[in-house]
């Protein structure tokens, strides 16, 4: 998973949010390798690895599927996101505003903000499992726990969420700095977790570690499930073009290869190591085993591991709460950023009390990507196809429009069958991300032909 660019408080630095990044600010590829490695080795990895086992991973499907999915993700970053980022050198938000107008961007921001709150909530849950370790009264959640596990759990989550929210409001930059410093160390703690777990396993036979049997007795997540999940868990970032904001600084599109550091270190090594932790728990305690990261990591690596879980959860939750706050502030311009952040923190803390969000993280990540990534298809159409097929590029900028109906319809309509298939037929969300993305692009072409006429085109048709 990801922890995007770190916003800062009171910064005098020009972030080029409403202009193309000038050549003097371009960066070489080395700037991106470390950043991607750090962003994709985060608190979510502690939850996702165990969830693979819960979903019935078998060794071949998991090891090969993740590998293929990670390769596809890297190729998407390199050949789709990076060329547009280095061609436009604009943030996603500014480019969207040029296409669909300020009011519709606000709606996108709101959707983003709400989803960020739930992601931050899952990270508060992860951190709480570590903070609760020294307190035996705190009952750790298991896969079957969807509701709060008790008063003590709620108190830990409440205190942690409150602290994280206050830091997001007042001292965000310190946490961003800690997150940056901890990245190399954190990856090694993941590796250490895997190494220390191996000799404790009752059997190192791969088929007894990743048994291929889902804990809920349902169908297991097969090869294609892993491929699509690994490819699309960051769909909002690559297909959805959120990483335009990062890669617009790249000197060349080849900087997109840097995403391989995040994929193969964070979304391969870290996931596999995290899944080993839960494999041990299952071998020791059977189906009632808890997948709470705190106790598992503490048992494997002691206080260093516990610190890692707290820092990983905290450094993922904090920027997420901060960005959600900004999104809410964008909805109500009279609201201060602090108020927006407090609201986001309160929602995240409340969500964090419910382990359901963290336990359903595989689903949530798929839903998150599928809801947000369609706007990337609109940018692809606008960037590569608009002039060739007679659409008005940057429609809102050229016409002064503030709400592009074509974008709204193209974004929302494919999500309706997605919601139906997910809720009523339990289709794994990551399977639907690409169809939704492609549908959105096609529908945008159709609706833009109908709704997005510039005054000049309208006049020529009338004549």
């Amino acid at each position, binding site marked *: 998973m990801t922890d995007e660019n*770190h916003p*800062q408080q009171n*910064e005098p630095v020009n972030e080029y949010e409403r202009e193309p990044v000038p050549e003097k600010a371009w960066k070489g590829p080395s700037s991106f390798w*470390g950043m991607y490695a750090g962003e994709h080795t985060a608190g979510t990895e502690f939850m996702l690895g165990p969830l693979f086992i819960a979903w019935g991973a078998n060794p071949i499907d998991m090891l090969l599927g993740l590998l293929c999915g990670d390769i596809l993700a890297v190729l998407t970053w390199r050949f789709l996101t990076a060329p547009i980022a280095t061609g436009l050198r604009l943030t996603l938000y500014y480019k969207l505003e040029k296409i669909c107008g300020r009011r519709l961007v606000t709606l996108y921001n709101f959707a983003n903000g709400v989803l960020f709150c739930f992601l931050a909530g899952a990270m508060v849950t992860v951190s709480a499992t570590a903070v609760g370790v020294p307190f035996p009264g705190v009952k750790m959640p298991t896969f079957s726990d969807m509701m709060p596990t008790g008063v003590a759990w709620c108190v830990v989550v409440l205190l942690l969420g409150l602290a994280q929210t206050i830091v997001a409001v007042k001292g*965000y*930059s*310190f946490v*961003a*700095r*800690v*997150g*940056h*410093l*901890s990245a*190399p*160390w954190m990856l*090694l*703690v993941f*590796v*250490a*977790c895997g*190494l*220390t777990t*191996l*000799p404790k396993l009752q059997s190192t036979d791969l088929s007894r570690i990743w048994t291929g049997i889902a804990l809920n007795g349902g169908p297991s997540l097969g090869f294609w499930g892993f491929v699509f999940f690994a490819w699309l868990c960051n769909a909002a970032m690559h297909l959805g073009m959120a990483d335009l904001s990062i890669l617009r600084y790249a000197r060349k599109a080849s900087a997109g290869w840097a995403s391989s550091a995040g994929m193969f270190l964070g979304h391969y090594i870290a996931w596999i190591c995290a899944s080993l932790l839960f494999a041990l728990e299952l071998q020791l305690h059977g189906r009632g085993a808890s997948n709470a990261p705190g106790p598992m990591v503490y048992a494997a*690596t*002691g*206080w*260093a*591991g516990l*610190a*890692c879980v707290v820092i990983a959860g905290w450094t993922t939750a904090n920027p997420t709460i901060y960005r959600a706050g900004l999104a809410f502030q964008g909805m109500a311009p009279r609201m201060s950023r602090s108020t927006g952040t407090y609201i986001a923190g309160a929602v995240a803390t409340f969500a964090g009390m419910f382990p359901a969000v963290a336990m359903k993280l595989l689903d949530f990540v798929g839903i998150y990507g599928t809801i947000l990534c369609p706007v990337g298809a609109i940018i692809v159409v606008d960037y590569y196809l608009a002039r060739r097929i007679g659409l008005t590029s940057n429609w809102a900028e050229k016409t002064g429009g503030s709400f592009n109906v074509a974008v709204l319809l193209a974004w929302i309509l494919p999500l309706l069958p997605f919601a139906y298939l997910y809720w009523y037929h339990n289709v794994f969300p990551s399977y639907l991300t690409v169809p939704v993305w492609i549908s959105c692009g096609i529908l945008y072409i159709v609706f833009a032909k109908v709704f997005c006429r510039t005054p000049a085109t309208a006049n020529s048709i009338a004549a």
Partner: protein
Amino acid sequence: MNILARYLSLFALALTVVPAALFALGVLGDAPMKLAMLVGTVLWFAASPYWLKGGSE
């Protein structure tokens, strides 16, 4: 100071992962492994800020 901090950081990272490898090989016990990792962690956060730039400060 900067050079010393770099070497200490490298040593700290080694202390974070090498004891775990030694534990996996059966060379090191559980308690010393965890203690070494904790020392490595403290050392990393003490030394790396001197030379590792980036983040928000």
